[in-house]
């Protein structure tokens, strides 16, 4: 019948476009893998444990970048999670009704500021402040490995602070959604048993615990891939160091800085291999985060209407 033929054409045509999206993901993975073959073949697993990044002698070890990415993201999560959760709790539970919209909007404003503007602010405003703080740190604390090194202003500490600020809105908006959808019965049950406000909140968080963890991981995924702001304040030195003072390097930053200059094939392939790893890590983190959030939301059954979704997609 004509209608069913039309329907089949419709399904097929729109399906092609959908397949394009699938092709994109697969394509990115494939091309990144294909264009890093030289490096994979030459270094194999040692690529991930090697500490020396020497384009002159052709020796490439990516450990400093992996360390830098993981350490900076971890620090950023340590700083941002309490703040983001605090904001989520405040907005959804504690704030006066009138403040809710403006506060929500203001936190989302943090996500709207482009990375390069964060970088600008980081270089001209945050770095001098951090340098002054580094100088002011008492000498007894300076002996600890985490605070050792000359006070440059740029370094792991500054990068962690900027990353934390950038990540807060993502974690906080998802956490807020989770909290909003916790069934009222949970809280009311807690109050009925004589809980204080904070204890009731803890119950709500406990109920949405998986989703909150998912929200945190969403922020982590964002921190792992951040490029511009980090590269302007982290010092760009491929070394593995615990110190917040020390200039270090992340995977995204080294790609941004050295991609246009990789003069020989091996160098380029090594950089692309780092890009491949970044791709894989962020996918894994994001998938886990989405699974956690999705399973929590399903448990809470209420249909999530589109404004949070649109903003969540925008935030994510």
């Amino acid at each position, binding site marked *: 019948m004509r209608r069913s033929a039309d329907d089949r054409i419709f399904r097929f045509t729109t399906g092609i476009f959908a397949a394009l999206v699938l092709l994109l993901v697969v394509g990115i993975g494939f091309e990144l893998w294909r264009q890093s073959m030289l490096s994979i073949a030459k270094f194999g697993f040692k690529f991930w444990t090697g500490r020396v990044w020497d384009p002159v002698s052709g020796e490439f070890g990516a450990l400093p970048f992996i360390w830098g990415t993981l350490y900076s993201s971890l620090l950023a999560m340590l700083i941002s999670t309490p703040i983001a959760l605090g904001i989520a709790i405040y907005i959804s539970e504690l704030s006066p009704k009138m403040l809710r919209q403006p506060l929500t909007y203001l936190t989302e404003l943090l996500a709207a500021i482009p990375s390069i503007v964060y970088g600008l602010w980081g270089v001209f405003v945050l770095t*001098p402040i951090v340098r002054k703080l580094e100088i002011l740190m008492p000498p007894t604390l300076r002996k600890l490995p985490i605070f050792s090194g000359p006070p440059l202003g740029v370094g792991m500490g500054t990068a962690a602070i900027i990353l934390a600020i950038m990540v807060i809105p993502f974690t906080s908006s998802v956490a807020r959604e989770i909290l909003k959808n916790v069934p009222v019965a949970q809280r009311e049950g807690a109050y009925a048993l004589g809980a204080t406000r904070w204890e009731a909140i803890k119950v709500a968080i406990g109920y949405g615990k998986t989703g909150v963890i998912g929200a945190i991981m969403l922020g982590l995924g964002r921190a792992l891939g951040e490029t511009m702001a980090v590269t302007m304040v982290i010092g760009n030195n491929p070394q593995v160091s615990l110190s917040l003072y020390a*200039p270090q390097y992340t995977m995204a930053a080294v790609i941004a800085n*050295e991609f246009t200059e990789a003069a020989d094939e091996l160098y380029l392939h090594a950089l692309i291999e780092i890009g491949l790893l970044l791709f894989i890590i962020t996918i894994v983190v994001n998938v886990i985060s989405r699974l956690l959030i999705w399973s929590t939301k399903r448990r809470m059954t209420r249909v999530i209407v589109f404004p949070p979704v649109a903003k969540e997609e925008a935030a994510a």
Partner: protein
Amino acid sequence: MRKFAFILLIVAACAKQEAPTEAGAGPAAKRTVVTGAGATFPYPIYSKWFSDYAKAHPDVAVNYQSIGSGGGIKQLMAQTVFFGATDGPMTDEQLKSAPAPIMHFPTVLGAVVPAYNLPNVTAELKFTGPLLADMYLGKVTKWNDAAIAKINPGVALPNLDITIVHRSDGSGTSYIWCDFLSKTSPEFKKKVGVATSVNWPAGVGAKGNEGVSGMVSQAPGSIGYVELIYAKQNDVTYGAVQNAAGEFVRATLESVTAAAASTAATMPADFRVSITNAAGKGVYPISSFTWILMYQNPTDKLRGRIMVDFMNWALSDGQKAAASLGYAPLPQQVIDLEKQALEKIQL
């Protein structure tokens, strides 16, 4: 179907941009864009040259992106740009692995200076090659080290940690610096070597000459190497360096020109020569040529013609602007040799 119309609108807008001519923002003249990339070292003088040249030739626009010498070489070899610019000449291996023969053309002379930030020290510091090598190797770590004090008698040096600043991108300025340090310190030559991008034993990386001079100007106790004009523009103090004749010389137009004068007589045919640590009196030891790289037989003859014309202009009119920006003009013998070499480009 409003959405369809919306999409059509966007596509139409794009289609309009695909006009065959690259229309300029002025009279709708047909303008050819030549893309080049490379060193940050000569960026100030190149940007002035390209701007002046465009004023004299409104049908040409040379788009130069300063991404570092390493980037210039790479993009030229990948043929994504028409010409490259570098302060570190291409190595034999690089030339061999290029898709076609590439020629080097010196444009100006510049100096790399040791810029430092010591807030309470007003006297101008002196450095030697071996001392700078030891600092960059991480062996000398404090400003009041005996090695520094010996060369700078009578100067009250603070008990401050030395913060080394180097380039994080592939840089010809790094090449010149490492070239000088390798010539004066065998240990540096062995441990680090000479290239546009090396495995630095110590220090912080900054992007471009601008990044290094910016970092030095902001962090007390730091020392970095930058092209002379960047030190001047950023108001950063820089020191004198000991040359092969034992004198401590500051980078000036005269001392840089002196460095090139001795080599003019023995200039190799491909212009790839290092003039660091040159012999002679009054020579500034960390001087260097900077080159523009072009394919000897470019497939794009139109752009080839434009660049050859530009080079001839740069070697005559352009040299006059060099001094005002802190670069030394090329010795006349080198200019003459180059004009001959330019004719070898097959158009």
